[in-house]
């Protein structure tokens, strides 16, 4: 917690401020204001139009907003309000290379450059003067408001527009122009506020769902609407939200805050942008309160903050019913240089952010040194070369070569947000499908409470022990029984406990054996996870040995217990099993503080290994049995809670079917999803044919179709529909099998049988070569197993499926009724 800076006495209280600024505006109405309404570049923000020729010498560094305001009142000259970080320009250069740039943008760029150089100069001056450093804060109380990192705020956009300072906290009713305490309802179209009692007819309470005011309704119908005129003398006050949405304000996300050497407070902002200002413009599916987060940053003085606003992700937004007027929705990130959109990942990657910040700092420093050179072109070149965002330069920036991070991934993004992602009118079946996805994991796996407790107890015991000697847990079970998911769920709950301080912190490393290129690579991965350094696996083995066996911890802070989760453990078995031995040996060392959790499918993996390994691994085991049908039913219905899409027997049928075969939860979910898809497909078909909607629930028949598709081998259908000669061929195979009792036959013998069959039933024998080709085709589909074609007459043949299947498939074939005799 930082010291709370006191407001300087110089600063006037709010209402006074208002008066002052408004008087400014009145006295000098001709003040040039950078107020281009729509596609303004951020770069021109807060600048007044500069005229290079008449520009006075750069003003003294760092003036407060108050001063600058005074300054503008006396001389209407351009004053850089905030030292801009130069990164946006390089972005702009990059953007210029990929997309045509409009001339006015070029204009702004030029003037920006001028300002930048000044700023750079200023910064340099400052560096020379003050040896003191910036002080960074997490939380700052400024101008009566408390701001902390991660907050969202409105920022002034115009230098001296009087209206910016009037800030009605409460919105007025569109009808009666009074704020009042009565409940107001917001129109989803124009965002206007209405008192419930002012409506015609008046509403008793806020209705569910979307509500559109009658003005918007009328506009939609194409009528001319006259909005109620405010009573004379009263000017309608615009709220900050309205100003922001009409691009008179900025909104920003506070990334960091600091106090400059001269005592002014600054923050680093990440800008938000309204849909109108993106390259794609407002898209029809954009909500009124929707914003985009950009990847553009700037350092702004805290003076220009107006107050808080609240930007939320869609989930929180839908929950936030009445949190005030300044709530916004932000789902996407907008890349200002590629003009593309990307969803904001749920789990924001802190590492990435840190990295970005770092690169930005580098930027600033290099800028300062560069700015001394007078040559403009040189200056520009330097920048492009330094910029990673520019188009790729040769081999060093190959996207798939990982040097800390992948390059160029920011290029990927949708040019426009596709409309279908915003379809809110999802059917019940659609919702069910989304819930049944394997990707959407429940918070905690149902029906695995006992196992969860056991794992929790194991880890807690091991971590709190401090010693954790020889702690190793082997988890086994058939695929799809929730092994990995359970362990991860346990780790999540433990994480919360660590955060609340109940148990000691530990580090957690997760490795999948099947995702390693070779078993030895596991050392490298572990070492990288623990320290962040990338070394060869031999070196990593050496270092890990040192750490775990000899107890030489290279850093004290790394001395926390380490939990190693190895999925698909059986893949680490090498010929001399040294990898497994090493990994399982470390926990037995006194100072290792290593806990190993191994997951594999086979129950008897420890027994299959060398005794010295099984003695280290096989002590503590946990078995995840296949789910039975009640459990599967619970898993499915817990996901489908609140969604009316499935008939109850359908779920039971699916779970019974899967429990009988494998007890694989993934399979059960997939069957249900497939059944939902089939039902959806069926419904669409019936809708396109005639408008009578069929059953809208997923029934047993759909599940049965899905089960059939999933479990039934398609060979019978293929046999039924294959050519005449293939059928004769197969019948001859079966006939031969019955005659000789041997599964295997040779082509020569089979050809004889076929020719017998053909002649006695009045079919033309096609010749050996044709028959041979038919046989090879069947072999290709694996209906029969056959040797390679070069063996010709000697080729051995065998049915790949039980002869009963062939009999079943061919018994009533219409074109060859005589086949039944031989089956």
């Amino acid at each position: 917690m930082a010291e709370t800076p006191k407001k300087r006495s110089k600063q006037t209280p709010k209402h006074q401020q208002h008066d002052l600024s408004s008087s400014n505006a009145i006295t000098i109405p001709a003040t040039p204001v950078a107020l281009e309404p729509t596609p303004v570049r951020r770069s021109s923000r807060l600048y007044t139009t500069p005229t290079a020729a008449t520009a006075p010498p750069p003003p003294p560094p760092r003036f407060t907003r108050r001063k600058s305001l005074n300054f503008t009142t006396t001389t209407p000259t351009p004053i850089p309000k905030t030292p801009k970080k130069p990164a946006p320009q390089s972005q702009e250069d990059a953007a210029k290379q990929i997309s045509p740039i409009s001339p006015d943008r070029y204009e702004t760029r030029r003037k920006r450059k001028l300002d930048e150089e000044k700023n750079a100069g200023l910064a340099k001056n400052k560096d020379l003067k003050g040896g003191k450093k910036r002080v960074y804060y997490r939380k700052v109380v400024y101008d009566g408001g408390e701001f902390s990192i991660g907050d969202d705020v409105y920022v002034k956009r115009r230098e001296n527009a009087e209206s910016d300072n009037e800030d009605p906290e409460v919105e007025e009713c569109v009808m009666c122009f009074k704020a009042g305490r009565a409940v107001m309802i917001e129109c989803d179209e124009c965002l206007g506020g209405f008192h419930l009692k002012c409506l015609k007819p008046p509403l008793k309470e806020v209705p569910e769902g979307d509500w559109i005011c009658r003005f918007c309704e009328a506009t939609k119908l194409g009528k001319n609407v006259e909005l109620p005129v405010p009573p004379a003398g009263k000017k309608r006050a615009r709220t900050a939200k309205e100003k922001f949405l009409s691009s008179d304000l900025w909104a920003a996300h506070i990334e960091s805050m600091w106090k400059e050497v001269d005592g002014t407070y600054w923050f680093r902002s990440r800008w938000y942008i309204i849909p109108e200002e993106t390259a794609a413009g407002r898209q029809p599916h954009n909500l009124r309160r929707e914003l985009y987060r950009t990847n553009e940053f700037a350092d702004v003085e805290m003076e220009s903050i107006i107050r808080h606003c609240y930007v939320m992700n869609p989930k929180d937004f839908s929950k936030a019913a009445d949190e005030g007027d300044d709530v916004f929705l932000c789902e996407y990130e907008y890349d200002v240089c590629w003009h593309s959109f990307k969803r904001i990942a749920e789990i924001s990657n802190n590492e990435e952010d840190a990295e970005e910040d770092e690169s930005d700092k580098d930027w600033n420093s290099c800028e300062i040194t560069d700015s001394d050179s007078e040559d403009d072109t040189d200056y520009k070149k330097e920048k492009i070369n330094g910029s990673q965002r520019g188009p790729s330069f040769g081999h060093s920036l190959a996207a798939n070569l990982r040097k800390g991070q992948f390059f160029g991934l920011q290029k990927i993004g949708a040019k426009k947000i596709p409309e279908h992602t915003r379809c809110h009118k999802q059917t019940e079946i659609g919702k069910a499908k989304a819930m049944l996805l394997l990707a959407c994991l429940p918070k905690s796996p149902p029906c695995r409470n006992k196992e969860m407790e056991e794992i929790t107890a194991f880890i807690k015991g091991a971590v709190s022990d401090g010693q954790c000697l020889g702690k190793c847990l082997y988890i086994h079970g058939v695929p799809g029984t929730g092994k990995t998911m359970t362990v991860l769920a346990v780790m999540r709950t433990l994480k919360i406990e660590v955060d609340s301080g109940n148990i000691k912190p530990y580090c957690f490393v997760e490795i999948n054996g099947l995702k390693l290129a070779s078993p030895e690579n596991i050392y490298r991965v572990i070492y990288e996870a623990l320290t962040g350094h990338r070394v060869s696996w031999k070196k990593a083995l050496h270092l890990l040995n040192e750490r775990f066996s000899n107890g030489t911890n290279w850093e004290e802070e790394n001395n926390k217990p380490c939990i190693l989760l190895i999925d698909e453990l059986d893949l680490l078995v090498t010929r001399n099993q040294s990898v497994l031995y090493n990994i399982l040996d470390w926990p037995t060392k006194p100072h290792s503080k290593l806990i190993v959790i191994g997951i594999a499918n086979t129950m008897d993996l420890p027994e299959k290994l060398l005794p010295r390994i099984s003695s280290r691994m096989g002590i503590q085991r946990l078995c995840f049995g296949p789910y039975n049908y009640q459990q599967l039913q619970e898993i499915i219905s817990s996901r489908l809670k609140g969604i009316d899409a499935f008939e109850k027997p359908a779920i039971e049928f699916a779970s019974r079917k899967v429990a009988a075969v494998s007890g694989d939860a993934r399979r059960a979910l997939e069957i249900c999803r497939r059944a939902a898809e089939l039902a959806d497909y069926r419904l669409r078909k019936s809708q396109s044919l005639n408008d009578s909607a069929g059953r809208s629930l997923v029934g047993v028949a759909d599940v049965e179709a899905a089960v059939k598709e999933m479990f039934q081998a398609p060979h019978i259908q293929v046999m039924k529909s294959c050519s005449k000669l293939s059928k004769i061929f197969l019948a001859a195979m079966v006939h031969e099998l019955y005659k000789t009792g041997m599964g295997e036959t040779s082509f020569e013998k089979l050809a004889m049988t076929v020719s017998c069959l053909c002649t006695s039933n009045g079919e033309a024998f096609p010749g050996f070569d044709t028959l041979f080709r038919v046989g090879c085709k069947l072999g290709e589909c694996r209906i029969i197993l056959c040797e390679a074609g070069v063996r010709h007459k000697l080729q051995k043949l065998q049915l790949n499926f039980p002869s009963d299947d062939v009999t079943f498939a061919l018994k009533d074939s219409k074109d060859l009724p005589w086949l039944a005799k031989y089956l």
Partner: protein
Amino acid sequence: MGLKNPAEQAVILLRSRLCNPNFIFTLFSDSPDSNYSKLKYIISSSVTESCNNSVLLLGPRGCGKLAVLELVLEDLLREFPDMISVIKLNGLLHSDDNCALKEIARQLCLEHQLAFSKMASSDENSQFLIAMLRECGLAHKTVLFVLDEFDLFAQGKQRLLYSLLDAMQSVTSQAVVIGVSCRLDADQLLEKRVRSRFSHRKLLFLPPSREDLQRLLEHALLLPSGSDLPHEFVANFNSKLLNIFADKKFKDIMDTVFNTDSTFKQVLTFLFSALCHLDLKRGFLSVENFKDALSNIQRQPKLECLKDCSILELYILVCMKRLEVREHETCNFNSIMKEYKSIHDSFQTTDYYARDVCRRAFEHLLRRELISFLDNRGHGHSIEFRPVKLLISWQELYQGLKSYGSCPAILYKLVERETTT
């Protein structure tokens, strides 16, 4: 250029139709039960609802698995521009995991105009793949992995399939894996843990039925009336063609084609071949064209091989046959020579050649694959001592001798005697 024979133009048009699978398969795409609409539904639901699927397209070769897939992809790319990237792999080329990952990275880079490095290790490539899947998912872009010859990917540890399918279980990714295979048991080849992650959508592609075939014939061969061909020519051509379709002889021909192999591929090749026999001077297709095409398409390679053999080679084949009938399990060049000599001695034939000549004939037969070594062992031995086997049956030999113009009567008699005994 403009002055071209209308027949020539028509042939060009028809040929380009037959070679264009898109044209052929649009015929079957409109019905809701077709594989086309099912596949399109699955993929487009993945695109719009961001659910990850894995689909297997199974069916015998030549039933239009890839053709339908291409058709669907083309439509979807038109419908959702910039939202789909297609990665195509072939099991014959990329069954090795590292190589497949590299190819995926290369195609992803190409698709998104990123720089690609050949030097990246497979670890880096797989991490790149995961990162790309995540980014594409965040940008609402679907990545389609088309794995042709899917069965060949299911070898070894199946690392590629595992990592692809496992990545699809994360929320942010948006991908579809489409496996194309002619092996009907392709999904049984997957390891258990891979199979559990596979979402088992299966589409079965079957050879066309008789009715479909009839529709296909008309769809492919009838000339369109609205083209720049002369109107009367088109009318004439079509009416002649319809006459042919109604002809009994033509139906028989089609039956023979259809009986042996009823796949789209076979039928199209047959039609193409018939089109190639079209007499440009007459300008219309005739039944004879189809007849020629049939003989063209139903080759009997072994019989034709026999036709090209010399008398001496026939002698050797007959000797081998005789030895085989007498149940000599193994015969090699020496025993064949002995038999040859005994025939010569007992029947006093005029064709007796020196051992060296015989050996050359023997080697020739080996090369024509009418006979072959019994096993692959004994490469070091000289040819004389390695056991050989006849690759054609006596019926074929008999038929071959019958159709051989100047076959010595004695050979014929010998074979006949063998068959009767």
